[in-house]
């Protein structure tokens, strides 16, 4: 912009004409003549004001442009179609509210249907994602779909906004980033973002992942180190052994333990060989003609200093400590080792186990099964019932993740089928461990279960005479509510309409219970509202 004609006057206007008066020739053409023509009686200030007013109009009338030759490459054409404006309107209304889970589900739905967001929603989305207050869970959930949601225009736009750019590059496949962007991310990101990046590198550039981790290692605190170490499970290979062996000498028990747990999964590693030598004879089979025999666990007689490198501490040499060493060793050994050693199936080994340290052995076997993802062992351990109490093993629900999805779902449905089933009481713990996505068949069955259970609970609630719900009933309601919450996030889209048909809004007058009216009904209705919203969105996306 050219220099303003008012500039000379501003000085006097700011300090005031009382302090300093402008020279008489301050007006420039064409206003000099006009000012001269003003009546002499007019005050100086009045003249200056009229001059300023004229200059103001003159400036707008004579406004001039600014030559701006900067080159700005335009955004490239899109690869995906935009979702319809109707879908966009639904997404927009979801983004305006603060229900994060609904937002995530809606956005995932758009991406799953091969659509991107329309351009006008991009600033809102980026703004939401670069908001410091947003939970890392939400960011993590959206990371895989962000690049396709924002499309080419989003990538182009983010270049102009540093915070958005960071959000975007932390979501892009690392293969699409320049070296500079990669190292920017690695240097400047938060821990969850760095971990996400490292996990990606473990897939396509493990040497770089190892190099970065080795460089960062001395600077990190224990918690971060453990998280970084955890990424080794992706694409674990022989070349990782050198670094992991070094970690086995660290001072922290947790680090040693995690490094050993990784190395024992590499059959060619020295650690694996060492472990199998140590494990020899820890479980022994004793053949007996009358009942098929028993399996004994043998407590290690003494602590070997070499075990330190497995992450096993000596502490003392009491029976309890020896049992702890036993459990720690068993938890590392691939369970298939025992099948070979004892020439028994997993189910038989568990059944025949007979010793004072059975619970420690079983706990160790559960950990080992999870570590080595041994399906047959998971199946056997999940089905095993304590002979005295007829109860499933504590902490065994974790093992559900070692089963294939259909089998895991069947297992859960079986548990839900009747209150007589041994897992029936722990259905919620199992449900929480069921891997996602759920199959549509399971989703629908689960909705039916929720509805049946709901009817029973309502019936029992109405029978309860007072407004105060009996404690056991509240506990059951709480379980039900948690189940509903899990379903809300895990239910596949194919079940939305079914859920809306089966579950009907509850009328508060149906119950006297304060608890049900103020906790259950609102969360139930929110669930329905959520599903109705997603079902609408789905229809718009499929249109």
């Amino acid at each position, binding site marked *: 912009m050219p220099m303003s004609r*008012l500039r000379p006057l501003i000085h006097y206007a700011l300090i*005031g004409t009382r302090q300093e008066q402008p020279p008489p020739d301050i007006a420039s053409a064409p206003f000099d003549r006009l000012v001269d023509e003003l009546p002499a009686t007019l005050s100086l200030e*009045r003249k200056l004001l009229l001059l300023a*007013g004229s200059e103001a109009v003159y400036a707008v009338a004579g406004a001039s442009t*600014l030559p*701006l030759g900067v080159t700005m490459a335009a955004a490239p054409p899109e690869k995906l179609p935009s979702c319809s404006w109707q879908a966009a309107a639904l997404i927009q209304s979801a983004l305006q509210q603060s229900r994060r889970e609904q937002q995530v589900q809606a956005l995932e739905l758009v991406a799953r249907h091969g659509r991107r967001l329309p351009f006008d929603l991009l600033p809102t989305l980026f703004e939401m994602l670069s908001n410091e207050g947003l939970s890392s869970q939400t960011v993590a959930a959206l990371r895989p779909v962000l690049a396709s949601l924002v499309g080419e225009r989003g990538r182009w736009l983010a270049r*102009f906004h540093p915070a958005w750019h960071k959000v975007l590059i932390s979501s892009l496949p690392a293969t699409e980033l320049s070296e500079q962007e990669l190292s920017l991310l690695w240097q400047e990101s938060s821990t969850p973002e760095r971990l996400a990046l490292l996990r990606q590198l473990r897939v396509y550039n493990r040497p770089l992942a190892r190099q970065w981790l080795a460089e960062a290692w001395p600077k990190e605190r224990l918690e971060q180190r453990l998280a970084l170490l955890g990424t080794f499970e992706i694409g674990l290979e022989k070349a990782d052994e050198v670094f992991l062996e070094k970690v086995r000498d660290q001072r922290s028990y947790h680090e040693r333990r995690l490094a050993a747990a990784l190395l024992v999964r590499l059959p060619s590693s020295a650690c694996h060989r060492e472990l199998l030598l140590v494990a020899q004879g820890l479980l022994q089979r004793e053949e007996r003609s009358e009942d098929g025999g028993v399996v004994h666990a043998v407590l290690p007689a003494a602590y070997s200093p070499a075990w330190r490198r497995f992450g096993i501490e000596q502490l003392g040499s009491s029976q309890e400590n020896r049992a702890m060493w036993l459990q720690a060793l068993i938890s590392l050994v691939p369970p298939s080792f025992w099948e070979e050693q004892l020439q028994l199936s997993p189910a038989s080994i568990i059944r025949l186990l007979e010793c004072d340290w059975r619970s420690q052995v079983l706990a160790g076997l559960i950990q080992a099964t999870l570590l080595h993802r041994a399906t047959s062992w998971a199946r056997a351990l999940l089905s095993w019932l304590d002979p005295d109490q007829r109860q499933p093993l504590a902490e065994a629900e974790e093992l559900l993740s070692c089963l294939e999805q259909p089998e895991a779902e069947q297992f859960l449905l079986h548990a839900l089928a009747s209150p007589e089933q041994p897992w029936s009481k722990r259905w919620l713990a199992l449900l929480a461990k069921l891997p996602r996505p759920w199959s549509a068949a399971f989703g629908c069955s689960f909705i039916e279960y929720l509805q049946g259970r709901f009817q029973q609970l309502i019936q029992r609630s109405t029978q309860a005479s007072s407004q105060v719900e009996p404690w056991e009933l509240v506990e059951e309601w709480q379980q039900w509510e948690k189940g509903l919450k899990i379903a809300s996030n895990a239910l596949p889209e194919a079940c939305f309409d079914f859920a809306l048909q089966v579950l009907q809004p509850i009328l508060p007058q149906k119950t006297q219970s304060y608890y049900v009216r103020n906790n259950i009904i609102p969360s139930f209705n929110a669930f329905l509202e959520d599903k109705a919203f997603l079902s609408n969105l789905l229809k718009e996306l499929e249109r």
Partner: protein
Amino acid sequence: METALTPAVLASLAPDGQVMKAGQELANQRHWQTLGQDERAFWGECQGSALYRVCIDKLSLKTSCTCPSRKIPCKHSIGLLYLAMSSADTVPVAAPPEWVETWLKRRTAHRQGGDQPQAAQEDKGAALAMTPEGEPERQRRSQRRQQRMLRGLERFDLWLSDVLRNGLADLQGETLHQWEQEAAALDDAQLPGLASRLRALIAMPYSHHNWPESLLRQLGKLALLSEAFRYMERLEPELQEDVRQALGLPLQSEELLSRGERVRDYWLFLGQRVEQRDQLWQQRTWLLGRQTGRQALLLQYAPAGRPPTFTEHYPLGSEQEAELIFWPSAYPQRARLLEAISPAMPLGSSPGAASFAEFLATVAAALARQPWLERFLCVLSEATPICLDKGQHWYLRDRHEQALPLSRGPHWQLLALAGGHPVTFIGEWNGEELFPLAMISPTGGFQSLFSFKK
């Protein structure tokens, strides 16, 4: 049946986000027992807690629903519009049932009687109903008022000179409080226009780096205005009208109807902005005549302190054959929509000046006729929004690589929609910066950029 309904129109109609969302949910045929439309209206019966009957006049977008909601338009009306917009065949063409006919007849009768409520909203408090009185009485009143105004101006001029004498540098706190008092005195002297202009300046000191210059300009323009009123007889009659209006002397509805200029055209509804001014919300809607090339500014007011609701709804992003009436002026800009002649249609070809040079020339020509014009509609074709220094500076560039600054940003929405490609830009120019209102792109069509956070 083709309709000019767009998401932008719907968003501007809905009184708040809640109604919009509820309307979206009702936009499903299963909620509706009957649905229909003809060339004049949409109608439908929606099953809520009772069966509600909804009618929408296509010409004026006025809605009617039998539900008890106080929010107008209600969620049922928005739902029906949403349905009509979703696809052409959801709302079938049919003969209107009797209840629709009755309503339409009432509408027509109402239209012929003139839209009084709008006039009331347009002339905030100024439109005191004229009581029948004799000519001598009227003249006496007018003289009395003239005297009062002159006395008010005299006082104001002295004060203005004092402001300059004392300097602008320490305009804060207590000093600015005096500005408030001065504005109140102007109101008392029946100079509400001047009072409003003065109040608008109170927020200016230290608001941005260039404030002393902006403030000095505005004070200067106020001085020019009072000077013009004192020597009114030297001005041409049309410019006298402008001075009177700028000071806040209202033009009565009858006067407007008898003296205003009527212009019939295909009017393009290009942009809308809502701003708080004094104790009121002001809504500005910008129109461009396809044949006459004239720009028109429709104003509506609503009380501040709650979300604004305006009586008239305009089909933003559409064009409509209509008759406007312009306030008498040396450069008529402010207008009222007198009569819609046909339902709104989607925007045809994109309008717009080819370059900033061309646009600025029209501004200069307008100012030469009416120097107190505050804002201009800027429609520029092949314009590219430019973002510099990571969102610190924003410009609009024309095809000749000449640029004007956009209003203090950010303008991410505009940037996202344009994507570095040339588009038709629609905005308000205040002589210093461009405030984006909407844009038209070859792929995305019309998109509104200003949305009032309801």
